[in-house]
């Protein structure tokens, strides 16, 4: 496949916040409530995206940093870029100044031939257990002053015993 030297990527929205560690990138989507762990060589891909590298440069950088078949590295990288776009975490095109770069505390990968780590395909784990916290219920009733009528998210409370009074 002909890699594009024109296609760059950028983080899609300011609401995508992320932190880069040696072993993986933690990404949180404040809009949807989804959060992600990007492991394997995914961290190196993400760094390259934030650095503004194009598709061909990203693959070249990984091939220089990891030992492994170039075709495998290329295919895995393209799969990840596709997945990140499907998750609306990145978009094609150059970054603007509003989508601040991730804080990067990672250690630069050794590139001397004998020190190259083996390529591990990027893995993007997605977690959606927090999404329910962001569900917005439309308000149906307000009182005469305009204050919303509460929608109890817990039913009536029943004391097990007489409450201890505090003053």
């Amino acid at each position: 496949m002909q890699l594009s030297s024109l296609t760059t990527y950028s983080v899609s929205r300011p609401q995508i916040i992320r932190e880069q560690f040696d072993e993986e990138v933690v990404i949180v989507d404040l809009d949807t409530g989804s959060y992600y762990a990007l492991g394997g060589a995914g961290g190196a891909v993400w760094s390259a995206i934030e650095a503004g590298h194009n598709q061909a440069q990203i693959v070249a950088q990984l091939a220089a940093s990891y030992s492994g078949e170039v075709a495998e590295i290329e295919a895995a990288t393209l799969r990840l870029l596709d997945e990140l776009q499907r998750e609306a975490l990145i978009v094609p095109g150059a970054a603007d100044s509003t989508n601040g770069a991730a804080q990067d505390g990672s250690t630069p990968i050794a590139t001397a031939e004998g020190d190259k780590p083996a390529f591990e395909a990027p893995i993007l784990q997605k977690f959606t257990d927090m999404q329910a916290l962001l569900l917005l219920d439309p308000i149906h009733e307000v009182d005469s002053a305009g204050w919303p009528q509460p929608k109890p998210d817990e039913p009536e409370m029943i004391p097990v015993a007489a409450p201890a009074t505090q003053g």
Partner: protein
Amino acid sequence: MPDFLAGARDENSALFFEAARAAFLRAEKNATTSVQRFFRIGGFTVGLRFAGHALPPRLTPALEHLSTAPAACDLTIFLWDSASTETEMTPPPWSRDDYGVHGEVRGYNMPRIRTAFHLGSGVLSALDLQNNEAIFWIRDAADLPIYESGAPLLTTLHWWMSARRRQLIHAAAIGREDGGVLLVGKGGSGKSSTALRALNSELQYAADDYCLLEGGERPFVHSLYSSGKIHSCDAHKFPFLQPALDASYNLNNEKALFFLHDTFGHKISAGFPIRAVLCPTVTGRETTTLRKIPASASLLALAPSTIFQLPGAGHNDFSFLSEVVRRVPGYALELGRDYENIPRVIADFLETL
């Protein structure tokens, strides 16, 4: 998601806050009595000024362990309900379409003023960061959900403490005066039950569900609430809790809410330095063990449940938590069936740090 920093200027939000404050003063006058309580929270003196007597028994039990003598306040919160004071709240100047997912009011969350109406509880929270004053209002104190009693003033304290390098987090905390651990993870991970076991051990208890984390070179946890929750079906595993459970409240999902100050006041710590972040998981194995995990795993367990629960939480909170997990080592706490031994495992672990 709507941009809640757009809209009305600080002036409009300040005008609403002043109107709400004036309504409190009318409520205080109508109630003929007021109650003032003082609490030492996160190293600051927070004064609660109640109009009437309806709200104090519903909002102070979880804070009793932090009660302090009257003093000059770093933050003053005015609290009242319309029903018992027979005083109406000023009408909202915004529309019914202006509420965010956590009740944040569009156009009324500016640098100086924060405003949120929690749709589940019917509580209005407003904060003036310039004058260090806040408002808590509900139509009727009798309608305050019990879970609000377990974690009172969560929104206001989150906002105000964030400006003072103290992050309200969803975590438990146990340990000793010279150091302890945060227990982080989603519901059902064993976080709260591990914390409660500290009440029957040599370790001190600082938090079950929420606490304040102070950043810096040596992160420090401050106790916030001395309340606990437990599934009714698990109560038999905690026989030492019976004195507290005798005066508990039923939540839904068959959980009970109880307060610890009266029966376990001697076991509650105001706080300690954090030496490790523990991520508990129930394994079903015989014994409890600890396994080192990378900082990213600690952040995954800690950040989402904190950020997605709190109004206005975002980049700054995430960066704060990221800094903490880089400073403090993380471990998986693999919980075995040796329940009574869990605090000892943690105590022995603290000795090694």
